[in-house]
């Protein structure tokens, strides 16, 4: 077994995932250092979301190794909840709990999973909500807010547990263009603050500006990965070129 680089936060080697006969991920290799922002790009069905779900142990991989903070988390004996308590995830469809207010959504995991006292958890949540322009929404229920506000609240909920790695699964895909901006601004701020993130996205301009590494997925493979300048201006693969030509217009 290869030894992980000492300071790599996440190291993925030869990961494979199948649904029955269908191979959805193959030969995935990816290294994420602290403060990296990795953007996964590629057409729908290329495996971006599945990869994120495998990293968060929502799906079991069929082969390969995932190491997180120097420990193999693809081992069946690993405590999944313990891993997830240090990894945040935000979904395309927000998945806020509709029966709780925004504030209660945000303090649920810190209080119940991490054992943070109520006052402290609420203070931290309110600070983050304020930072994200949601100070006045804290006591509302999610369904009463706009899509952009809901997605920002979902981001705050993920951040409230102070994860070392943030996984964002096409978080702007369900938003209209006006609202995309307000969510991406926040992600950009997080990147500047040094948050380590892996995000599946269709926002190419954003990926070009913010990513430290861009991975182009095609048919379940990472066909090409590198710094955005390289991938966007001088892609090695013909498939990448065609994809970029299509999405960049």
């Amino acid at each position, binding site marked *: 077994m290869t030894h992980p680089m000492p300071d790599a936060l996440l190291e993925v080697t030869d990961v494979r995932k199948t649904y029955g006969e269908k191979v959805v991920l193959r030969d995935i290799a990816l290294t994420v250092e602290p403060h990296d922002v990795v953007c996964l790009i590629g057409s729908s069905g290329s495996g971006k979301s599945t990869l994120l779900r495998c990293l968060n142990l929502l799906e079991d991989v069929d*082969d*390969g*190794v995932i190491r997180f903070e120097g420990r193999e988390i693809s*081992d*069946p004996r690993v405590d999944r909840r313990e891993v997830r308590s240090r990894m945040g995830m935000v979904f395309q469809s927000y998945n806020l709990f509709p029966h709780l207010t925004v504030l209660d959504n945000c303090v649920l995991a810190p209080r119940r999973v991490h054992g943070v006292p109520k006052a402290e958890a609420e203070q931290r949540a309110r600070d983050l909500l304020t930072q994200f322009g949601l100070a006045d929404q804290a006591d509302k229920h999610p369904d009463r807010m706009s899509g952009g506000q809901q997605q920002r609240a979902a981001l705050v909920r993920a951040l409230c547990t102070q994860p070392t790695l943030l996984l964002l699964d096409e978080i702007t895909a369900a938003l209209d263009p006006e609202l995309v901006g307000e969510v991406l601004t926040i992600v950009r701020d997080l990147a500047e603050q040094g948050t380590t993130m892996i995000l599946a996205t269709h926002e190419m301009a954003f990926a070009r500006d913010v990513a430290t590494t861009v991975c182009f997925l095609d048919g379940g493979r990472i066909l090409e990965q590198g710094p955005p300048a390289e991938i966007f201006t001088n892609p090695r693969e013909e498939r990448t070129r065609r994809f970029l030509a299509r999405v960049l217009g």
Partner: protein
Amino acid sequence: MSEPVETWQPSARERERQAVRRSLRRRALLVSTVATVAFFAVVWFGTVSSPGWPSVKSTFFNWDDAKAAFPSIWHAFWTYNVKLFLIGEVLILILALAVALIRQSRAPVLLPLRIVAVIYTDLFRGIPTILLVFMLAFGIPALNLQGVTNSLFFWGLVALVLSYGAYVAEVIRAGIESIHPSQISSADALGLSRFQAMRYVVVPQGVRRVIPPLLNDFISLQKDTALVGAAGLFDALFAATDYANFHFNFTSYTVVALYFIVLTIPLARFTDHLQHRAMERERQGAR
């Protein structure tokens, strides 16, 4: 697009992991087996070793009495209890759905019906079913109405339908109300009428959600068919009482209990199966 020929072989690490998963599964199987056997052994031993067990065994679990009581109870069970709930369930579903829909309706003309529906559910959920059976089975014939049947079976059935209709109506209403308003909006947007939106979009989803409590009510109904026996209908329970009184042995009650259980278990498994299938079809990630 041609897929490359699959040459994948599990890596050494993956084979190791599969072995770990297998051993974890074996351990889980072992734990569940031991726990299950131990639990039932304790229950069995506790029952059999109690001081009164021999006499309980001969009065409640006597094989000869079971065989002797079987045919007459079967006849009563089939002609009355099974018929009562088979007919009853259909009528209850129709009545309950109608009441639930009326309570959900917004049309101004239907206001009087809405009032009736509210009074009906409040009133009939409040009256004990056995009282309702007595009131209808004894009260209606006492009115001496021309052309109205005095059949105990008929009025017992009506009492059960009225009582359970009120319960089931509320269950269905809860299901309907649990459907997100956006579903009605999108039905509206497609040009469906209010009734069509209910009929094709809301009710199918809402009813599916409340199938477990609906099943509860139906199982409860199956058992409550025995209440009509209390009003004098010669149903399974009455037949069992008859046998018990004549032979001084209660095994006939055990036989009735078995009849009811045998009836409900397949129904419960069948609805579980239906629900599971629907969930797998509609939801990604459901296991």
